[in-house]
């Protein structure tokens, strides 16, 4: 991302709102506001300090207006870019640009969703596509299943390897007190669960929960005077390859290849320098695709890479340390939670699931049906 400067901005506050199944009649904006309040408390700032507001939710067409009204603020900088679950990684880049240009001094990125309480059909209304809808794809699952079919065909990836991803996520979730799933999971249980869209059973698919949260950002200078150690934005990259799965150029290669390269370039780092990975695991194939496209293994070797607990607690590479969208929380547009977990790991606030000696993290967002990809590389003071 030319123009964005490595380490010029930092994440200074993070928080989740209520998660899981929230109280009846809570709105998406209620959850955003709760997240904002908690994230500001995390860094010791007040609502009146906020002059930059970024947000997205599937439940409000003009969420920037709704949230600003709700909070009683009139932000100098506002952005409600919505590109699916990766929206919040795009927001990080936009917030950094605004901070560098002096368009605002304290930027808050917020998300909220009550899709579990109100039902997915109401939370995220599907647009009619005359070239796809007649074939009744169950979206997004069918689209990701098509990508998985292609990966299995070209590289011999197996359902057991996909299940390894779900099992690793569950093992991490068991270490996270706020994760939705509380019971252990085996490969056999993944394979024998209810089929959704072959090769995916319901255990290959992300959860359907409520949830929200917020991330507070400011300039590196300001960040050093606040409560918590700053977590610097070292790199950002993004790529859009399509909107609908029938227009994805190659179902085995995602835009993460491009977004990752851009983020590595800006951060002046490579995959070998990254300590922990938070990858948007809407489906088990995602983790495999992103490990390949972000350079942690070669194309086609992702299935073997995730086998034998390699990305589980105690494995070779810590991936999705909160339990992921598969076992921790997935309110529909999950990207914000990857940023929250990455920042908390780098601050060493993660209790039983804390990864020792981590200084750098990737939070990689995915949106639509592998459509939008955005990579954010974060680092501690030691990386500056």
């Amino acid at each position, binding site marked *: 991302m030319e123009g964005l400067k490595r380490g010029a901005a930092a994440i200074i506050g993070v928080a989740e709102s209520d998660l899981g199944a929230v109280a009846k009649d809570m709105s998406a904006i209620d959850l955003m506001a709760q997240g904002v309040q908690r994230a500001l408390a995390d860094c010791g700032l007040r609502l009146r300090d906020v002059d930059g507001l970024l947000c997205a939710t599937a439940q409000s067409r003009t969420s920037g207006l709704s949230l600003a009204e709700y909070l009683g603020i009139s932000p100098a900088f506002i952005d409600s870019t919505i590109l699916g679950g990766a929206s919040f990684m795009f927001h990080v880049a936009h917030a950094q640009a605004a901070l560098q240009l002096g368009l605002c001094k304290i930027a808050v990125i917020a998300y909220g969703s009550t899709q579990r309480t109100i039902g997915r059909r109401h939370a995220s209304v599907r647009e009619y596509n005359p070239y796809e809808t007649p074939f009744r794809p169950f979206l997004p699952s069918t689209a990701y299943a098509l990508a998985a079919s292609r990966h299995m065909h070209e590289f011999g990836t197996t359902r057991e390897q996909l299940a390894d991803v779900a099992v690793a996520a569950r093992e991490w979730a068991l270490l996270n007190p706020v994760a939705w799933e509380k019971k252990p999971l085996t490969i056999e249980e993944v394979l024998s669960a209810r089929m959704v869209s072959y090769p995916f059973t319901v255990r290959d698919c992300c959860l359907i929960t409520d949830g929200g949260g917020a991330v507070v950002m400011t300039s590196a200078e300001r960040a050093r005077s606040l409560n918590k150690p700053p977590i610097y934005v070292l790199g950002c990259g993004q790529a859009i390859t399509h909107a609908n799965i029938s227009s994805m150029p190659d*179902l085995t290669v995602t835009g993460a290849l491009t977004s990752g390269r851009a983020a590595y370039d800006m951060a002046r780092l490579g995959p070998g320098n990254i300590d922990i990975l938070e990858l948007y695991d809407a489906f088990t194939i995602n983790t495999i695709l992103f490990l390949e496209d972000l350079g942690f293994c070669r194309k086609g070797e992702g299935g073997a890479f995730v086998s034998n607990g390699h990305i589980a607690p105690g494995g070779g590479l810590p991936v999705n340390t909160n339990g992921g969208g598969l076992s921790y929380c997935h309110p529909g547009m999950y990207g914000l939670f990857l940023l929250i977990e990455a920042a908390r790991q780098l601050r060493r606030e993660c209790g039983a699931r804390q990864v020792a000696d981590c200084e750098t993290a990737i939070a990689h967002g995915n949106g639509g049906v592998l459509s939008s990809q955005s990579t954010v590389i974060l680092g501690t003071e030691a990386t500056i």
Partner: protein
Amino acid sequence: MEQITGSPLAIYQAHLERGELAYQWSPEADRAVFYPRVICPFTGSGKLEWRVSAGLGTVYATTVTHPREGAPYNVALIDCDEGFRLMSRVEGVAPEAVRIGMRVRFRIHRPDAGEPPYPVFVPAETA
């Protein structure tokens, strides 16, 4: 500037009504364009010709979607020989018997009254 009198979708569907699978050809890009549009995504030009596909293609990706109620069904991406890809389904075989690389042939599907026809495929050797 002349106003468009027939939308890309309307022209596509008029072909389907006649039992034809139509696509666009961009002479400047020298390649097929699908889904139909008002400009070519490879050149930005408005110059697009309509062509009718020979209806032969290869399965690029396939899945069997299992609804909570009702029978599982196939959803596939088909690469047509003219160089465009579309979502469809393969009929005439069990949904799980559809294989990547399988040669398939276009067949028009006419749903109940009120719904426009759409393209489905069957294994090429049985067509």
